[in-house]
């Protein structure tokens, strides 16, 4: 338990170890620690940024979807009204066409009827003429008259 030279020896040993530690141990280890701390910090910051971006992107996506839905609704409504319009238009023009065709058809029918009547009149007069001719030809024979008149009547 006496104080002796060991004290000086220990002091020298301590100086050597502390010097070595200061020179060759502390700096590389602390550098490694600080580098890793920085890396972790950066990583966490990047993760935060990523999360922020994700939230923003999600909000953006939701907005876009909402907008698209709105547009789709608008388009659908427009299409519906357009379709209704077209149908209405079609109905109207159909009715008009029908009327037009009806008018044309009835006009044609009338025309046709007139023509037929005209023709018939011509034919009747021709028949009458022919009848009269025949009657005149066979005036002598009453019987024959009768005959011809019957035929005429039949023809009429």
């Amino acid at each position, binding site marked *: 338990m006496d*104080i002796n030279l*060991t004290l000086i020896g220990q*002091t020298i040993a301590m100086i050597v*170890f502390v010097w070595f530690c200061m020179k060759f141990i502390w700096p590389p*280890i602390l550098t490694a620690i600080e580098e*890793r701390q920085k890396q972790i910090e950066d990583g966490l910051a990047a993760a935060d940024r990523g999360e922020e971006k994700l939230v923003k992107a999600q909000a953006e996506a939701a907005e876009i979807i909402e907008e698209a839905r709105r547009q789709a609704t608008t388009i659908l409504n427009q299409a519906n009204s357009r379709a209704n319009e077209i149908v209405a238009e079609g109905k109207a023009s159909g009715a008009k066409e029908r009327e037009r065709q009806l008018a044309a058809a009835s006009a044609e029918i009338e025309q046709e009827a007139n023509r037929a009547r005209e023709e018939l009149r011509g034919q009747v007069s021709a028949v009458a003429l022919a009848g009269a001719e025949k009657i005149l030809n066979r005036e002598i024979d009453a019987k024959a008259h009768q005959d011809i008149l019957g035929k005429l009547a039949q023809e009429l």
Partner: protein
Amino acid sequence: MASEGGHGPQTSSDYISHHLQNLQVCKADSGEWVWNQCAGNPMAINVDSMFWSVILGVFFVVLFRLVANKTSKDKPGKWQAFVEIVVEFVNNSVKDTFHGKSRLIAPLGLTIFVWVFLMNLMDLVPVDWIPEFAKRVLGIEYMKVVPSTDVNITFGMSIAVFVLILFYTIKNKGVTGLIGELTLHPIAPPTKGLGLIAAPVIIAFNFILESVALLAKPVSLSLRLFGNMFAGELIFILIAIMFSGGLLMGTGAGILHLGWAIFHVLIITLQAFIFMMLTIVYLSLASESH
């Protein structure tokens, strides 16, 4: 064991004093180098304390240097993780206490912490293992394996710290600052009027007080560590004596030994931490103006 060993100590007190005896070498009056006849010789060297303290210091330095050599930022191994935990622990302690810039303080703290811890850790090696091995195999009579139970070792370290305290005080406050610190506190001497007559007395009073306070730093630093470790070692030795006292005593001693060892794990870590922390505190006090 106390009763074993052909030329070993026989009684309990012999056993204890044998365990507390350093392996010493010194130059005798006759001019020859002699072993173990150095009581009271100030030029003696405690070979066992020096050997174990240097071996443990080298162990610390090599282990940490190996890790420092291949530090990897991305894939730290287990050893690296362990070393980094210790380094960060010390670094945080230094940062919390020492606010100046110094390249020395943190490595100093790390060296003190790990080295003192390793020296204290030798206390947990059963007290007879290494001394008996040294005696029977190597033929070495005395072997004290816990360097921090040698007052020379603890004083050796605290004196280095003391020199650093003076160095930092002078570096940051100048020689006048050191003298001022020693003489102008805690009672400020009057600078004018009749009080001037009392000034020398007050300065002398301050000087005595402050010198004692300054010297108490290294003394308390080393004696605290020494006292704790010495007492712990002594209790291990006392428990070890019980092992030779029959089955009942032996069993009791085993339980006691286990309990004390577990408690001692706390003490050795705490003492290493206190030594480091106080060193940092003293040095930060030395480099800060209040």
